[in-house]
Every structure is written in C-alpha cells, then in structure tokens.
C-alpha cells in the first residue's frame, strides 16, 4: 500500500516540479549561450547585450530560488490538503497512519534532492567554461596535505544535510497534525502556532548543544581561526574530532527530533483526527 501512496503522490506533484525544472534548465542554457556568444568591445550593441545578459542572469537566479521555495511550499501544501477535503479520500483508504506519513515524506525528500541536483547541474551548465576540477583540486589537495580527509567531510556533510531535511519536513508535518487540536476554531492558525512552538523548542535545543560544544572545544575553535597556514598535526586531529562530535551531536539530535515529530504526527492523524 505504501508504494501505491508514493505513486499517487509523485503523480500529483510531478507536473509542477518537472515544469519548474524545465524553466530552470532552459534559463541556465540561455545564460550559458549568452556568455559564450558575448561580443567583444564596448559598442552600443555590446551594452544592449550586456543588459540582456544581466536580466537573464537575474531571471535564472530567481527561477533557481523559486524552485527551492516551491519545493517547500508543495511539501507543506500537500500534507495540509490531506488534512482538509482530500482527507475524505486518503483517510478512508485501508492504509495505516504510518503509511500515510511515509507516503508523503518519501516523495518530499526525493523531490528536494532532485531540486538540489537540478540547481547544481544548472550552475554547471551556466559556468560550463569553468574547469571545476582544476579550480577545486588545489583546495582539496591542500586540505588533504594538512591531514584532513575532504572526502569524509563531504560525505558527512551530505548525510547531515539529508538528516536536516528529514527533521524539517517531519516537524512541518507534526505542526500541521497537531495544529487543529491546538486551536480548534482555526486549522491554519493552529498549524502556524504549533510550528512556532516546535521551531522555538528546536532552536533552544540547538543553542544548548552549540554552547556545550563551544565550551568543550574552545581550544580547537581558536586553532581553526588560523586555517590554513600554521596548523599543527595536533590541531588537525582536534578539528577532525570537533567536527565529528559537533556533527554527530546535531545529527543525533535531529534524528531524535525527526522520530519525535513522526510519533506526534502519527498520534494526531491516527487517534485525534478531526477533519472539518
């Protein structure tokens, strides 16, 4: 049943996402073409060309930003609508609340990843003349020569971004599921208030974690200010350790919060559902 829910969620959202991606890629292509055909000299034609190029660059930037904004809006709206009129369909299907949640969550995560990949690919298209390996290679090698492992840091960073994404989507869901029970007269108002409460709690936890880490790793933070010129091997080891503990702490915190968000959502849509 979960695979069927996912299939319908993708069907419902594919059109708008694919259209958005097409706009971003086309604008990236136009910008790449404009850059490659740029006339030399400072003729009036050149000035017009520069004006058009600037406008197209701006449009591309807006489109790329809008793609991310749209992703967030669609993730929220899809779940919110399930708790409204569409709930009469989805909540009368023979599926469990857990399946309902994952039926929305998995496509939301996939679309966010695809949006990020499309955005990165479009940047690559616009800057196709830039040899990124030769640009980034020296930085990578410099970090490696100082005892860091950039590959490990990159993978850890990507995993952390994924966990952050998971917790953010889950907390949106929890707020929307809890909201109607918080303010019975206004589903939207209740959802907003619930999200503010959840967000504040998240920020307090983040602050506490951050302060603890700063105290524990104060010496390391001082060493980090000297990057990249005079790091000792002990500094590098300390920075690696700090990064691991720092990232590990927040990764665990976010995973725990995602699980809490899941149980809050499941509780309210499973036991306290009150469709208006």
């Amino acid at each position, binding site marked *: *049943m979960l695979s*069927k829910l996912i*299939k*319908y969620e993708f*069907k*419902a959202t594919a*059109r708008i996402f694919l259209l958005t991606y097409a706009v971003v890629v086309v604008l990236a292509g136009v910008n790449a073409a404009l850059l490659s055909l740029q006339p030399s000299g400072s003729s009036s034609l050149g000035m017009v060309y520069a004006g058009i190029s600037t406008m197209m660059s701006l449009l591309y930037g807006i489109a790329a930003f809008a793609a991310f904004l749209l992703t967030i809006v669609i993730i929220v709206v899809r779940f919110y609508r399930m708790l409204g*009129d*569409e*709930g*009469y*369909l989805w*909540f*009368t*299907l*023979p*599926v*469990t609340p857990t399946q309902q949640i994952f039926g929305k969550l998995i496509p939301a995560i996939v679309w966010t990843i695809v949006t990020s990949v499309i955005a990165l690919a479009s940047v690559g298209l616009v800057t196709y003349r830039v040899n990124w390996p030769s640009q980034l290679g020296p930085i990578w090698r410099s970090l490696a020569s100082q005892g860091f492992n950039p590959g490990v840091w990159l993978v850890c960073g990507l995993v952390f971004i994924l966990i952050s994404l998971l917790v953010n989507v889950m907390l949106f869901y929890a707020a929307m599921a809890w909201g109607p029970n918080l303010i*019975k007269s206004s589903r939207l108002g209740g959802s907003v208030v619930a999200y503010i409460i959840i967000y504040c709690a998240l920020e307090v936890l983040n602050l506490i974690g951050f302060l603890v880490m700063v105290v524990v790793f104060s010496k390391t933070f001082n060493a980090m200010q000297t990057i990249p010129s005079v790091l000792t091997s002990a500094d590098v080891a300390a920075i690696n350790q700090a990064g691991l503990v720092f990232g590990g702490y927040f990764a665990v915190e976010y995973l725990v919060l995602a699980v809490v968000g899941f149980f809050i959502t499941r509780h309210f849509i499973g*036991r*306290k*559902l*009150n*469709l208006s």
Partner: protein
Amino acid sequence: MGALLQTQGLTKQFGPTAALDNVTITCQTGHIVGLLGPNGSGKTTLIKIVNGLLSPTSGTVLIDGMAPSPATKARVSYLPDHTYFDNWMKVRDCVGLFDDFYADFDKAKANDMLKALGIDTAKTFRTLSKGTQEKVQLALVMSRRAQLYLLDEPIGGVDPAARDFILDTIIKNYNEDGAVVISTHLIADIEKVLDDVIFLNAGRVMHSGSADDLREKTGKSVDEVFREAFKC
C-alpha cells in the same frame, strides 16, 4: 443476520456543543437503513466517526466487531457529502485509485456504470459539473462489494431525475450480504427502499427501528412521521 454496525454511548463535543449525545444504534446485515434528521442533527458527524475521520469524545463504534481501522476501511464504502479528488486527476485516475487500494472494487462494473452515464473517463474530474462529479463518486463507491455502504446525503444536491438514478444505482449495485446506511433529510424520495430508520435530532436518537413497524404503528408514512416530529 448479525449486527454489522454498532455504536454505544457515542458522544462528540465541539466545544460546548454536543454534535452527538449518547448515540446507541445497531445496523443489521442485509438492511438498508435511513439515517434521517434535519440539517445539523448529527448525521454527518456520526458517519465521519464510523469512518475514522472524527474522533469521538466518548463511546464506542464497532464495524463487524472492530473499531475503525484500516481493516474496517477495507470493508466500508463511503460516499461523503462533498467531492474529494485531487485537481490533477482524470476520471480514469479516480477509477485506477479505487482499483489500486480496494480489493473489493470491480473496475469493469465501474467503467460500465460510467459509460452508461455518458461520462468520458479522459476528462479531468474537477472540470465536470457538480452533479456529474457526484455521479462519478457514487459509481465508484457502489462498484465495491463492500460490507457496509455509508452514503452521506447522496441525493442532497441533485435534481429529481438524478435522484431516481442514484437510488436505482444503490439498489441495483449494493452487496446484499452487507448493509447500507443512507443519510438524508429528503425522506419521501428514499422511503420506499428503507428497511430501517433512525431519527436523529440535535445529536440524539429519537427513534430507531423497522420502517414497516413505524408505518404500522402510526398509520403514516415515514416521511409524514418525520415532518410531524421535526415541524418548525
């Protein structure tokens, strides 16, 4: 014949207002039950609780001996009082969705009914007229071989000719090993098909029993009894 649907002391509060107040009813297998009451009497609230769309404040609901759950949803075919399909869906997607999720759905029967109604399955659901949307939903709901059909105001928003079609569809297509609960305040139109009636008023059960017994006891039609009971 056993009790397919039972509620015991069912109460639902919306703030200080009791939408349902200690409602205890039973629906038997094989019966068509009229859930009758004026607007705001609690009919929709009761049906939504049975479907698990609302949580009761107190009391219990049992469908074939089970509390509302995915297992009961596989047995219940529900027609809500408004449309619920997503904007992107064509009629054939709606058929496909029912076919995907309900094991008791008869796709061929649904397509035959839609064809008989002259509904183009390639059309987007939202572009159909309200009456046609309701007919599509009814065709889908009645194409299931469910144990319990819960039909909330199926004839509420349609013209008299469409009412006849809807009632005819219900009578011809429901699973006779199941039960049908029809909620309405338009009693004259459905009286002829009812085995049992439940009168609801202000969230309370005023009367529950056989339609024939009621007619015999009062010497009046159910519609006349209803009009007298709920006279303004």
